[in-house]
């Protein structure tokens, strides 16, 4: 033990001068190689997925080309496949989910991290972790048996009466459709936003708060104007985690979205999402073009996630630059 404690401080500056075999014997090199392998496997798996999806969708890519993204007919009998309604459904339901989940989630995280007592905060965190671990099919059942009737009998009529003049809340209210799918997704992703945002807020250095309070700000001002902006990047991260979950969610969405490929302005209208149609149709799909079109949908979902993630990164870079300038 004594030997290691003397070598550790010297490992940093001398690391370059020690031979590869020395480092191998110490275990440093082994650790580096093993962890490198693990890190590389992530990249490898991603590339493999893209490769497989690309290879598996040769037929529809050649037959439909970019029309696959533009057309909205999905007809296995006449072998016409277009992804537009599914892309639309995926984006709309995720947007509705974030619109609901972000304010609720961040608000709850602020309460837990800044305003609640530590004991209450930890107790609630336990429940939030529990919620995050509930399988999605359970949320789907919750959706069918509770959210759908409530939407049909209470919320949708109320929205119709108040906001019915907008195209968003028109048409027959079945209780299932884009809005309900968005609400169920929101319930599913809120725990992620709360849990991650709370950790981020808790990790904001104490002196930030103390400095704000010392300057005479109230507790809320120090929270809202100092702590939250400080944690902004991390909070954004939690939102993107939530978005990724919402985009790819399958079971819960398929149980409440209505499963009919349609593009409609009304949030009451039934629709379909990419993940949901793949789960619904893949097992019984017959014919090469049909199966491969479903695989291409998988590729589209991958692409969608990729683009949205890229935009998210960009947003973080842009806002942190602005924040930096403001701080300076």
């Amino acid at each position, binding site marked *: 033990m004594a030997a290691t404690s003397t070598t550790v401080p010297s490992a940093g500056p001398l690391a370059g001068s020690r031979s590869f075999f020395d480092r191998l014997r110490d275990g440093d090199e082994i650790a580096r190689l093993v962890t490198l392998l693990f890190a590389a496997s992530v990249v490898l798996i991603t590339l493999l997925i893209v490769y497989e999806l690309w290879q598996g969708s040769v037929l529809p890519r050649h037959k439909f080309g970019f029309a696959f993204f533009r057309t909205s*007919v*999905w*007809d*296995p*009998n*006449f072998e*016409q496949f277009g992804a537009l309604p599914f892309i639309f459904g995926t984006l709309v339901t995720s947007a509705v989910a974030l619109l609901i989940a972000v304010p609720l989630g961040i608000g709850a995280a602020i309460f837990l991290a800044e305003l609640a007592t530590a004991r209450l905060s930890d107790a609630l965190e336990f429940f939030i972790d529990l919620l995050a671990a509930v399988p999605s099919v359970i949320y789907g059942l919750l959706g*069918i048996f509770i959210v*759908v*009737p409530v939407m*049909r009998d209470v919320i949708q009529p109320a929205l119709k009466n108040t906001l019915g003049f907008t195209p968003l809340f028109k048409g*027959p209210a*079945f*209780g*299932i459709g884009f809005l309900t799918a968005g609400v169920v997704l929101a319930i599913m992703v809120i725990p992620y936003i709360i849990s991650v945002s709370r950790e981020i807020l808790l990790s904001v250095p104490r002196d930030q708060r103390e400095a704000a309070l010392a300057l005479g700000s109230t507790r809320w001002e120090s929270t809202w104007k100092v702590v939250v902006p400080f944690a902004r990047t991390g909070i954004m991260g939690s939102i993107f985690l939530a978005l990724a979950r919402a985009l790819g969610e399958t079971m819960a969405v*398929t*149980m409440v979205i*209505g*499963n*009919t490929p*349609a593009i409609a302005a009304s949030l009451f209208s*039934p629709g*379909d999402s990419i993940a*949901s149609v793949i*789960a*619904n*149709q*893949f*097992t*019984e*799909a*017959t014919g090469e073009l049909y*199966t491969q079109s479903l695989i291409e949908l998988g590729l589209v979902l991958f692409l969608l996630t990729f683009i949205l993630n890229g935009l998210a990164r960009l947003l973080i870079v842009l806002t942190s630059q602005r924040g930096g300038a403001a701080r300076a």
Partner: protein
Amino acid sequence: MKRIAAILLMTFGLAAFFVARAVLSINGAGASFPEPIYSKWFDEYHKKDPNVQINYQAIGSGGGIKQVTEGTVDFGASDGPMNDDQLKAFQDKHGFSVLHFPTVLGAAVPTYNIPGVTAELNFTPEALAGIFLAKITKWNDPAITAANQGVTLPGNDIVVVHRSDGSGTTYIWTDYLSKVSDEWKTKIGKNTSVNWPTGELGGNKNEGVAGLVKQTPNSIGYVELIYAIQNKMPYGRVKNSSGQFIKADLASVTEAAAGAAKNMPDDFRVSITNAPGKTAYPISSFTWLLIPSKFTDAAKRDAIKGFVKWMLADGQSHTEALAYSKLPKEVVSKELTALDKVQ
């Protein structure tokens, strides 16, 4: 403690090894609709002949056709017969053919939820096709009311519910509608999933459709007969080719198969929707085992043939307890002859 665990593990390992050695393991995959009866059969057959263990994966009919064609399983199973292209693909790949063997029968029934209506409704083929084509949009449409004298139907909009997952039930349902409506045949056609008219709702599996129908006032959907029987769901009568309104039950479905047996092709690839017969229920179908006509492993071949023989005789007695309709005698004897083609 560790040593005991190790010894136990070794004993189990060795036991599993020897058991696995002694038992001939046969693998099949395919349709999920007949899975309960198949599990029961394979279990019973294993009790009868402990040397044969048949494993079945309910991965769906499409998957069953794919796997048996690729040769990754010993036999497949499907709710819809393989088409000519698929048969040719099998023939090209293996140099011999794949045979269809009907095992049990299934049916799809219309189920509905109209507030204030408790009577069992009668549906004509025209009414069903019209409703699912979104041509008939109100419950008090003359096409529906004419067949239901004495029942007051409301003027509400009909909400149509269909299966969202690809399924044999959808295949039977659309196969029937294709037979009774030319418009359906040319516009939509039959398949495990089809391009439904817009505005209709999709539910996942029987549970999803049943749940949506139960929850949505003025809705109509279709579910497997077995599901309707086991869950005591109300469902409607359908007019058959002899002009009779028939309520689906195990007997009326078997009757449909008997009606079709006279014109049964030798490869059993036949649709029995809208079959002749006074008491035949028109939205019925076989489900098939897909067995290659040649086996390199003689033990496997004998085991599979042995199973099919048993299934056609004693096995049929297990069907009704699980709410499957059994095969009519005509079909059984024909299958026994066809079994000789498996070599």
